[in-house]
């Protein structure tokens, strides 16, 4: 259209402005994330200046001249201890938030989190079995725990999906099946705790707190890899998620979306990302449930924007929580799974009270 009417022109203009504003918000979020990462890198047992920490973070990419005044071991420290932990925090936060958005979208239920299909207690059960087995054999105990947690989580999700597929993969079946399996796996984990020795029990309980301590690059690579594969898949289905949110299965079908298939794919991706994260870090709760809502309050319910924004919100939440947990009672580390709620709830409540989108939930 070359000559739109004034009313249409005004509308177009507003739309254009809104799009620019969204891009800007996204960019601002990314910058904030980078700033938080640098801050997290600078703070710690050895306090470094921001400039030093930034240089150390990007050391492999920078010319030697820029790094000459930093001792070798400090760069090692940044690269091998702090950076993997920071990246893991970002991966965990973004992954859980994305999975949360996906699950909330396809079940049309704002109270749903990535753990709704029962992944969290299933992973805890797998881990507790591994811990119970004593791991005194050839297996390296940590890897056994990770593998067991992952397998258990995926098994649980498969059960839920298969079960709900009997009824055409409806959202109600997913939630109900997930609730049932949650209770089952919680009871199984409690049973394992019941027969564990005191040391094993303490290890199991600590695992459920969620922790980023001692994250290695291997772990980051695996979890990050799954996230990098899954995130674009979810973004591809953004319109489908909009359709689901708009009116449910009937409407989505009438708009041409293959309801059952989309739901299965999205659930599987969400489950894989969550399981990959949780197997390494333990159960970090709250992020998957609330980061999507915080993002929704800030940027609206259109999944094309909601997905990336939730990822950023989730990453920031976990990163800040990890920082707080590290510094508050140093040198003792408070597990990130505990701090996340303390950090996130006031923020969430504040947004709720001051929001104009009162009906957003």
């Amino acid at each position, binding site marked *: 259209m070359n000559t739109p009417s004034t009313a*249409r022109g005004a509308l177009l203009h507003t739309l254009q402005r809104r799009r620019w504003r969204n891009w800007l918000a996204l960019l601002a979020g990314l910058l904030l994330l980078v700033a938080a990462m640098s801050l997290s890198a600078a703070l710690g047992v050895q306090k470094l200046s921001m400039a030093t920490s930034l240089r150390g973070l990007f050391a492999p990419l920078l010319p030697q001249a820029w790094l000459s005044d930093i001792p070798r071991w400090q760069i090692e420290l940044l690269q091998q201890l702090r950076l993997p932990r920071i990246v893991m925090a970002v991966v965990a936060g973004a992954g859980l938030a994305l999975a949360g958005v996906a699950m909330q979208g396809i079940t049309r239920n704002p109270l749903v989190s990535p753990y709704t299909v029962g992944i969290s207690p299933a992973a805890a059960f797998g881990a507790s079995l591994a811990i119970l087995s004593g791991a005194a054999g050839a297996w390296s105990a940590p890897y056994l725990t990770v593998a067991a947690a992952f397998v258990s989580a995926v098994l649980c999700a498969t059960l839920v999906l298969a079960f709900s597929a009997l009824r055409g993969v409806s959202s109600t079946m997913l939630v109900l099946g997930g609730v049932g399996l949650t209770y089952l796996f919680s009871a199984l984990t409690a049973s394992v705790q019941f027969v564990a020795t005191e040391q094993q029990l303490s290890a199991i309980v600590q695992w459920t707190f969620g922790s980023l301590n001692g994250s290695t690059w291997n772990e980051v690579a695996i979890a990050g890899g799954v996230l990098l594969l899954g995130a674009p898949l979810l973004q591809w289905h953004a319109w489908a998620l909009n359709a689901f949110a708009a009116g449910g299965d*009937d409407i989505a079908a*009438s708009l041409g979306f*293959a309801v059952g298939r989309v739901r299965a794919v999205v659930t599987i991706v969400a489950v894989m990302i969550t399981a990959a994260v949780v197997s390494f870090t333990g159960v970090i709760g709250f992020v998957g449930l609330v980061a999507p809502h915080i993002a*929704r309050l800030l940027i609206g319910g259109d999944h094309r924007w909601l997905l990336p924004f939730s990822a950023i919100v989730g990453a920031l939440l976990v990163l800040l929580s990890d920082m707080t947990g590290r510094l508050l009672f140093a040198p003792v580390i408070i597990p990130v799974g505990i701090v996340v709620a303390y950090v996130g709830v006031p923020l969430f409540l504040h947004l709720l009270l001051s929001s104009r989108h009162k009906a*957003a939930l």
Partner: protein
Amino acid sequence: MLNVEKLSYRHGGRATGDRLILDAIDLHVNAGEIVCLVGPNGAGKSTLLKCINLIQPSQQAAMTLDGRALVQMSRRDLARAIAYVPQQSGTAMALRVIDMIALGRAPHRRWNSAAQDRRLVLAAIERLDLQALALRSYDELSGGERQRILLARALVQQGRLLLLDEPTSDLDLHHQLQAMTAAREIADAQGSGVLIAIHDLALASRFADRLVMLKQGRVVAQGHWREILTPANIEAVYGVSALIGSDHDIPYVIPMSHP
């Protein structure tokens, strides 16, 4: 254009037992024609629309659109051919009105269709007087406003066949007229067939080319209102004796008493 033969739908519910909701319905809608489905509550009007749209699977039916069998079409092709406006969209999560309408373009979207999509969406907004609401959140709106938005979504879907389920039940007179006029324009301008399930007999008669009267899943009568809006039919279908008259070539039906 739309040809439905012997459509039956049996609902097997544990509580109610097997019930025959639709019984061997024959129906057709021609291009550019508005056909209104009328009948009492529970007659099966909504179910009929859902069966045609393949949202509800029916037993024994031969349904074709422009000669193509509906059941053989892919979901996407079906969505391109048939636009469906449900009775009411349940509590949706926060989505902007304009994004809600834009969903109608989903089956048509290609990598280079963004400009055309935007144009059609804006045109629909203008047509249905939705500029003020365009950037508001869907779940904050009233029932009437939501109905108009759903109609706009059907508009941009540009289907050969438009299925409307009670599009005017929540609207005031002004917007009732607007909605039905829009349906008439779609039929005329795009040559689409329009099938509307509607309660209001007068409104239906004013705009429809043909009426189809349903009772308990069966077609009792179909044709022009002059032929089928008779006291006998009204009593048979609705169970009331009514006063039927006409003014300016438009009928009115006023229920008087139970016979």
